[in-house]
């Protein structure tokens, strides 16, 4: 059989570059300083990443990207997840560019994708609304047609990484279905506000009060782009999962290391069965997350049916990252509750990303439907 679960030569190289980048440019202090910022990133870091070709990693070469596979993107995001390095790389360069590729006209692709690839434009999605459903059917943002374009009215909530965006892709109800509009962040009537919350990370409220956009802002050639949006989300999910896999891996690594140095009751804590059991459970969570994610990436890259895999990967990784960080706190105890302890960065990330592109409840329901028809 063809079974081969190793990385290709290119993927190994990409991984090495990414690990070097993390070691040099995204140290614990850098990650810590980005924790409560609006952008989750600095201009300098962003330019470095774009310079490495990461901002265009899945964008075809003809549009200025490096045209890599989703698996490659997963390998990269996994390494960034070990930080966890926040910032809009996933939201813009994976999800944002996927939407443009799936929904945009040839002209729009030529205009936007190179700008995403070189890092000059950061395009993120504003889809969910106060009803917090990842079902695109729940969208209530309204569009009205005006002579020279459209006017958008509505509120988006839980818009990830909108604070770093130069442009937002706004999903709105056109009457014919769900239209996607590429909106300049600086448009009049548009406000982007970070949602407060101890663990909320980079999620935003986007308010649109008679925001006028030109005709060309409508992605694609018709006013219903729901299928394209769903397809882009489906293809992006396992890359986000890989980021969480990286988080789990970092938590496992730091916890095992701690088990070899921390002494209580005169012995290394890793010799206590209770501590061992917690770490074993963390490793199980990690490995469940890792292999559901990478099989899913492989299926998408190989054009195989992947619907069950996508739902499973998102449900498994969201829960795994949550559990792994909780368990890490139990092993570290006290010190890990300090604001500057790396485990706490992962805890915040695991909670913040739990619902992004659908929480386990949503994906488990969809999976149940696929399995049973009910």
């Amino acid at each position, binding site marked *: 059989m063809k079974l081969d679960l190793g990385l290709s030569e290119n993927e190994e190289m990409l991984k090495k570059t990414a690990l070097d980048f993390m070691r040099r440019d995204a140290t614990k202090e850098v990650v810590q300083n980005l924790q409560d910022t609006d952008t989750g990133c600095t201009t300098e870091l962003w330019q470095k990443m774009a310079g490495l070709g990461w901002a265009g990693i899945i964008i075809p070469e003809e549009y200025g990207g490096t045209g890599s596979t989703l698996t490659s993107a997963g390998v990269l995001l996994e390494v960034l997840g070990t930080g966890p390095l926040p910032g809009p790389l996933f939201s813009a360069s994976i999800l944002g560019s996927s939407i443009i590729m799936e929904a945009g006209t040839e002209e729009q692709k030529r205009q936007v994708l190179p700008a995403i690839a070189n890092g000059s434009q950061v395009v993120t999605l504003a889809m969910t609304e106060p009803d*917090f459903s990842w079902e695109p059917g729940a969208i209530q943002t309204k569009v009205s047609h005006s002579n020279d374009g459209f006017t958008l009215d509505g509120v988006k909530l839980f818009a990830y990484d909108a604070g770093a965006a130069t442009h937002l892709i706004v999903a709105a109800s056109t009457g014919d279905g769900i239209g996607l509009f590429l909106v300049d962040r600086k448009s009049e009537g548009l406000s982007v506000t970070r949602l407060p919350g101890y663990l909320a990370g980079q999620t935003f409220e986007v308010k649109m009060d008679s925001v006028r956009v030109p005709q060309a802002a409508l992605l694609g050639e018709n006013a219903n782009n729901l299928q394209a949006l769903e397809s882009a989300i489906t293809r992006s999910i396992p890359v986000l999962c890989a980021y969480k896999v990286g988080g789990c891996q970092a938590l496992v690594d730091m916890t095992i290391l701690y088990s070899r140095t921390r002494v209580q009751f005169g012995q290394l804590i890793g010799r206590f069965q209770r501590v061992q059991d917690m770490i074993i459970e963390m490793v199980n969570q990690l490995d469940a997350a890792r292999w559901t994610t990478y099989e899913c990436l492989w299926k998408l890259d190989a054009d195989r049916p992947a619907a069950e895999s996508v739902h499973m990967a998102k449900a498994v990784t969201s829960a795994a990252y949550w559990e792994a960080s909780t368990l890490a706190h139990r092993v570290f*105890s006290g010190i890990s*509750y*300090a*604001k500057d302890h790396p485990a706490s960065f992962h805890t915040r990330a695991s909670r913040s990303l739990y619902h992004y592109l659908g*929480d386990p*409840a949503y994906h488990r329901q969809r999976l149940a439907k696929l399995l049973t028809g009910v």
Partner: protein
Amino acid sequence: MDFSLEYTEEQEHFAGEVREWIKENIPDGLVNFRDPMKKTREQWELRREIGRRLGKKGWLFAGYPPEYGGGGIGSDKRFVISREFEKVGVGYPPFYDSARLAVGPILSLGTDEQKQRFLPPIFRGEVTTWQLFTEPEAGTDEANQQTDALRHDKEGEYFIVNGSKIFVGGIYAPPNQFLLLTRSDREAARHENLAMFLAPADLPGITINPLPLFVSGTLAQVNGPTADSSPAIKHQVFFDDVRIHESFLIGGDRDGWRVTTATLDVEHGGGQSAIPLENTAVKRFIEQCRSNPRIQRRLKENPQLLESVVDIFISSEIVRLWGLRNAWIADSGQRAPYVGPQLGLYTKIIGGEIIESLARVLGPYTFIESTEWSLAEDIFEVVQRAGLCFAPAGTPEAQKIIISRALAIGREPRR
């Protein structure tokens, strides 16, 4: 059997008295602080003032001996006080952090002079006390103290203290005094080398620095309306050649572990009976499941989520029932030493699971604190601050050690 917590006639009568007192003594703006981080200094001072009034009334340490300023009040009436304070959203007790922990050892091991000196200010609510046990190398392994308190070579009635303590105190510093565990002998055997002090917090050589946490508390705090003891700002305290007079020593030079065990017994849930209050956060959550249209719609769209609602309800019911059981065991003078830490452990573990269940049902609102968009504020606070920090009042692992001993797993039971 009778599981009822309804007032008896006598209790009902006393409740009227309490309600009257509350109306006269509790100002507006003090109720419903679920999140201690949100309390201003001014509000904190106000609560101290209420503490002093309560102390004067004998209701602060209501069950303790009146000769030292305690209330000498029976458990029936103490329950009424707690319940009435709960109804108006003001926590009761503890009012003053770790003072409760110090009281038992003082009563059983302190000298008469110490009882006269230490207890009245505590009982009257005049002083705040911090517990200084935890050190970087003494977490669950509480006996492994590295902070030295060595008798002065020449002035033998003084101890010289050097070292540091971590994860102590509440949001506002400084307190008046420390319940301070130290190592009094570098050579002596484990458990025979410790000394406990109840010492002033303003001695020369003491430095108190804030230590911000990213989260705080456990689900336990949800069982009452306030939780002063587990805020998201703790402190680190450094001792640099601090001189402490032996009159602040509780018990003997080597009695520290005995004293610690007595305090931990209280802290880990084995202490004085306290009828559990209602889990207001869970109650509010279930109410919202029934009444909040957004949650109703979500539950109808995805009935699989009902499993999480049921999980939350059942675990909080078990916490409530075990709380009743523990109170009954304590009040009826039975001995079942595992039930305290069992409830403590379960509350922590289930606390973490409840948070995850809440996150499932409430979706991304779980983590958003926004006046415009968030769900009930108290639920947000529970999710934000609770369910993650397992350390205060004993890690789950420490509690399991105690439970295993109490159940005599793998050892002959004590007769």
